[in-house]
């Protein structure tokens, strides 16, 4: 495998409300920041992740290219998935050996519609979508299967929100309180907040990575696995695909100092900790994680960026990042990042 590292990461100051910026306007800031950090204006490959249904417009990701300056023509691709999978595609592209740098970005404005119902559109159209199953109802089914202790869930939210308040990019959310249910057993605060935001990452291979960054965050392993879409065909209490992705990425080969997990509901952190076998001493979601800021389609990429930042800034020798897609953690990606020249 060719050595590939994260050499730059930037994200917006995420917002709980529509601040009036279009998607290309939102992505401009992080793009400019990673260009400045690396000194690169052109990249061997560019890949983005977004969801047209968030804006309700076909090919809405194409307009985001306006933020890039894609002329003369660039080598570009897009995934209709969280941008963590755009990073995976860019990492695979760099394995070809003919290009050495890649720009990855993701963005989402979930304030524009009703995210719970927009997410219904990702479901199988024969058996699930016609029932009007929304994202929170599905997550509540998984929470029920996990049968987690309420005090443990509350502590996950309290810790995540406190970390989010200390993170200038995340939202300022109060300590959780209230006894009411959104969809039982989930309370409103168990659910990641509606967030607008964007993020960008630069990947570089080998010597270019060493040249661009004092402490590159080397991708020691990255893998993704998926399981059946239909929830009734799975054991919702565990995530077999996250465990298999972690094994394939070599997550268990060393103790991570930091783990950034794409848990959009408090119980998902419990499922993922078990699946990834995260040691108790590892700091989980020191950024606050998705429960403190969830710019959909960038949230997974931000997990990789935040984990890489800990390595690049010398605060972690080894970090694990996780991204998820699909209902009830159907699809999981795990990346292992390490320091060193």
């Amino acid at each position: 495998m060719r050595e590939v590292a994260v050499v730059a990461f930037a994200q917006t100051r995420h917002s709980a409300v529509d601040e009036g910026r279009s998607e290309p306007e939102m992505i401009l800031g992080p793009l400019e920041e990673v260009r400045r950090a690396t000194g690169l204006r052109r990249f061997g490959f560019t890949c983005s992740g977004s969801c047209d249904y968030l804006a309700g417009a076909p090919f809405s990701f194409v307009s985001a290219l306006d933020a890039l300056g894609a002329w003369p023509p660039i080598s570009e691709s897009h995934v209709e998935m969280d941008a963590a999978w755009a990073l995976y595609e860019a990492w695979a592209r760099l394995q070809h050996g003919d290009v050495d740098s890649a720009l990855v970005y993701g963005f989402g404005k979930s304030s524009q519609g009703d995210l719970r119902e927009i997410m219904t559109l990702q479901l199988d159209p024969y058996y699930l979508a016609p029932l009007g199953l929304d994202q929170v109802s599905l997550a509540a089914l998984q929470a029920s299967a996990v049968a987690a202790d309420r005090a443990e869930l509350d502590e996950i939210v309290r810790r995540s929100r406190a970390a989010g308040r200390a993170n200038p990019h995340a939202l300022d959310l109060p300590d959780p309180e209230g006894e009411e249910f959104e969809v039982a057993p989930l309370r409103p605060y168990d659910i990641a907040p509606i967030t607008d935001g964007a993020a960008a990452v630069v990947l570089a291979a080998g010597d270019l990575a060493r040249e661009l960054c004092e402490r590159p965050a080397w991708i020691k392993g990255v893998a993704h696995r998926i399981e059946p879409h239909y929830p009734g065909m799975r054991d919702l209490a565990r995530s077999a695909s996250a465990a298999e992705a972690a094994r394939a990425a070599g997550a268990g080969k060393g103790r991570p100092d930091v783990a950034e997990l794409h848990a959009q509901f408090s119980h998902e952190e419990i499922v993922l900790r078990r699946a990834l076998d995260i040691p108790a001493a590892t700091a989980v979601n020191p950024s606050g994680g998705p429960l403190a800021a969830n710019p959909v389609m960038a949230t997974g990429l931000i997990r990789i960026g935040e984990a890489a930042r800990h390595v690049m800034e010398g605060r972690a020798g080894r970090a694990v990042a996780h991204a998820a897609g699909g209902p009830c953690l159907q699809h999981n990606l795990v990346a292992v990042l390490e320091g060193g020249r």
Partner: protein
Amino acid sequence: MIQRTRHVLEFPGGYTRTTGPVIGRFLTELRDRRLVGVRTATGRTLVPPLEYDPDTGDAVTGEFVEVGPAGTVESWSWAGSPRAGHPLDRPFAWALIRLDGADTSLLHAVDAGDVRAMRPSLRVRPRWRAERTGHVTDIECFVPEVTAMTAPVRVEYTVTPGLALARFLSGIARGVFLGSRCGTCGKVYVPYRLSCPECGVAVTEEVELPDTGTVTTFAINNLPDPRAPEVPFVSAYVLLDGADIPMIVLIGGIPAHEVREGMRVRAVWAPESGRGPSMDSVRWFAPTGEPDEEV
């Protein structure tokens, strides 16, 4: 000032999708009020049927088997505030239902009425829509199997109080508690009675008792009762002065949590015009304000 405008994404009339033979078979059977699963090469029955075995990736066999219609709830979440797109407009459960004969679970709504009706291993059956089109919503929802029913009971009687109680109530009508003293053991009973339950002999001596007494024990009642003015109310045993047996009465004129054993009380009578041979003539017993007695 940010300009905002409404934007609707819609496929008028809906998006037409072909079903393929496997899903099509399931939906066709559904239209005929039957639930079927499909067999995999390894012998499992997938419900709802998929074209490929999720375990192996192999195409499923062409064998369809009828399952259900009853099934068992494996896990559920409770939608307490249904949304516009939800299948029911009242609180309901989303549930994974293992239909009888299936090896996987069907996700659907359960109209259970109340979250307390939901439990693991709850047995449910489909409620079919009258007009079916071959759609997963041909099942309106699932409903719990019948495990209980109500049996109405009502019979009417004409009753008399008996001689002793009639005598006691005649005293109540004029504002007096009547008791009787046993000629053998000397105990004074109230309400008035014709025999001593301890000695088993007829008693003949009638005594008039004062309407004051002492609370010996009490209970705070949180369920409404037509005889009590409000909830919570206190029912108490009151030993009338001079009696040997306490009488059960309501306590009033004091917050429930302040009632105590040993408290001195006096009957609060209904106004004379409203009095008759009924315990309604005694509204309740209220504190006299005297020091408590040892009981």
